[in-house]
């Protein structure tokens, strides 16, 4: 009888994907792939904005061709950022309570405010200031519904005199200046959500917000670089190699900082080897081996770093450099996604008793399934396409002519 009970328990554990002992409520994961997407998307937002600020605040003229595209990319991803959270909530209809009755001690309660601040006070405002002249000109040159849309977008401010544009520029500069710490706040805060959970040793680290910020910059810069190269190719325009060289250089240096911080965290854990170490070490060598060691570290970090290093120290033909940048950018994005995966999913695979492990079973068509995750990952690109159509980031001949005639 006892053998039968033990046998049934073992069979149950195998069916649930449990090894060793999990507290009974821990077997199923609470946070799914959608919560992996959330920091990945906000990271792209923060990183894209930081890239835009390079030109605006730090006067890195070489990256100018990507300035507006970076802002629009940030906006497209920021619009989608709350969706995975909403879809994950048991009661999404109650989410406005976070605005109306936020709990002051909760890191998560600040989400709504940080999000709104970043969306409205920083990103939308900066884009509006930067595009105001274009919007006014487009409202004059367009017809029908489009004209009405542009008219509304001017918000009644159609003065595009040099003095007025000068004020726009000054205010825009200040907004970008405020935007840099805001971008850090947005993503550092996401890192804090995980880093402040003392119950979970995989997450609990004061380095977590800093690692999140730098990994955000890596993903955002890589993302905008790839989007710029793809869009330019689609427009059959020449890629500004000086621009991508500069972006790749920044990507390389920020990637080194990001990797160093992650290694510091890892070395610290290994050397300190506290009570959770044996459990976490086992997890990294088994359940997380592929996503952590193979995808995140080898494929997604070391490989792009080596490629970028080569482009920095060896004089390569332009075409080769471009291909290496594309490869590094794609691998960096895969690596950062794997990092988010390993943080969010990895942090739930082991028991807080440190005596067992569970398995994440990703559903396909449920509300938190992989199809929804893929759709949410692609959605920002469609939004970006619409935004680019509405607000072309490059100098438009049409508007230039209109400006000349003005």
């Amino acid at each position, binding site marked *: 009888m006892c053998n039968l009970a033990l046998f049934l328990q073992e069979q149950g554990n195998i069916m649930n994907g449990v090894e060793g002992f999990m507290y*009974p409520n821990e077997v199923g994961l609470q946070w799914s792939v959608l919560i992996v997407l959330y920091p990945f998307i906000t990271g792209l937002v923060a990183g894209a904005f930081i890239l835009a600020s390079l030109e605006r605040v730090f006067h890195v003229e070489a990256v100018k061709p990507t300035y507006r595209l970076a802002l629009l990319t940030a906006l497209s991803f920021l619009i989608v950022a709350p969706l995975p959270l909403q879809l994950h909530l048991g009661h999404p209809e109650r989410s406005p309570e976070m605005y109306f009755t936020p709990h002051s001690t909760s890191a998560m309660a600040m989400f709504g405010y940080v999000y709104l601040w970043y969306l409205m006070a920083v990103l939308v405002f900066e884009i509006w200031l930067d595009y105001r002249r274009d919007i006014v000109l487009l409202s004059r040159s367009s017809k029908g519904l489009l004209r009405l849309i542009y008219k509304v977008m001017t918000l009644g401010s159609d003065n595009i005199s040099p003095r007025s544009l000068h004020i726009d520029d000054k205010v825009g500069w200040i907004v970008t200046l405020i935007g840099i710490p805001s971008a850090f706040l947005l993503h550092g805060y996401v890192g804090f959500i995980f880093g402040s959970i003392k119950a979970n040793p995989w997450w609990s680290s004061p380095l977590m917000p800093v690692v999140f910020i730098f990994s955000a910059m890596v993903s955002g810069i890589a993302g905008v670089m790839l989007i710029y190269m793809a869009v330019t190719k689609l427009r059959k325009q020449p890629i500004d190699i000086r621009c991508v060289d500069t972006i790749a250089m920044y990507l390389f240096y920020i990637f080194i900082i990001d990797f160093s911080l992650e290694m510091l965290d890892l070395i610290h854990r290994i050397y300190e080897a506290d009570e959770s170490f044996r459990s976490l070490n086992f997890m990294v060598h088994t359940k997380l081996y592929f996503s952590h060691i193979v995808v995140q570290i080898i494929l997604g970090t070391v490989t792009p770093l080596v490629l970028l290093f080569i482009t920095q120290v060896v004089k390569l033909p332009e075409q080769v450099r471009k291909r290496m940048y594309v490869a590094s950018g794609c691998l960096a994005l895969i690596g950062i996604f794997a990092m988010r995966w390993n943080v969010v999913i990895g942090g739930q695979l082991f028991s807080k008793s440190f*005596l067992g492990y569970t398995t994440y079973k990703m559903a396909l068509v449920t509300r938190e399934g992989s199809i929804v995750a893929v759709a949410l990952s692609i959605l920002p690109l469609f939004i970006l396409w619409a935004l680019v159509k509405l607000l072309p980031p490059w100098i438009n001949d049409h508007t230039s002519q209109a400006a000349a005639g003005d």
Partner: protein
Amino acid sequence: MNLSRRHFLVLMPAAAIAWKSVLAGTPEQAENYKLSDHWWGMLIDVPKCIGCGNCVRACAAENDVPEGYFRTWVERYHVSDENMTNPEVISPDGGKDGFPVAKEDAEKYFFVPKMCNHCADSPCTQVCPVGATFVSPDGVVLIDQKYCLGCAYCVQACPYGCRYIHPEKKVADKCTLCYHRITKGLTTACAENCPTGARQLVDLKNPKDPIHEFLKTHSVQVLKPQMATGAKAFYNGLDGSVR
């Protein structure tokens, strides 16, 4: 009612325990209940637990706990001499139906009932984005399920694995210390159904509660003291290997 001498002798010890319980628990009517007069906790006497699963079943029945989730559960530890820090732990279906017979060896086996620790500085309360989970003035960590978003941040923050998202209600759920009972002067379902008295509801603000004497005279611990949560599930005879 005819009571034979034999029945009388059998019932005497039970009546004595019941009377002691009545005196200790100071039953009150709901209308007389004052929040500020109480500070609830639970005493868990590990050596007394026999792993029968009565508490788990009683809790599930009393609180309509969904299948596969647990407001309370019992773990069986098997600690070998060679590997004291890495015990073998089982809790088949939360220990609801008891445990398989242990191997006949000389090693250490014992049962550990688990439940919400009703922490005074509870991490779950700290992280709730809307304050749907809170510590009541009488020291019980509760959830307003009409307000909970179901974000599961509290589940992540609980170091003891006591919370879960209710599969039907889609909100956080956990032990309420049978709040609907204790505010009426009753004890919790798990404590009431424990045949050995391994679980006892305690009121730290009640000077007559035997917990005060017990804490003075026994080595009592809380789970994971390094978490500094102000846990109020006090364990007597807790082995160092328990997680």
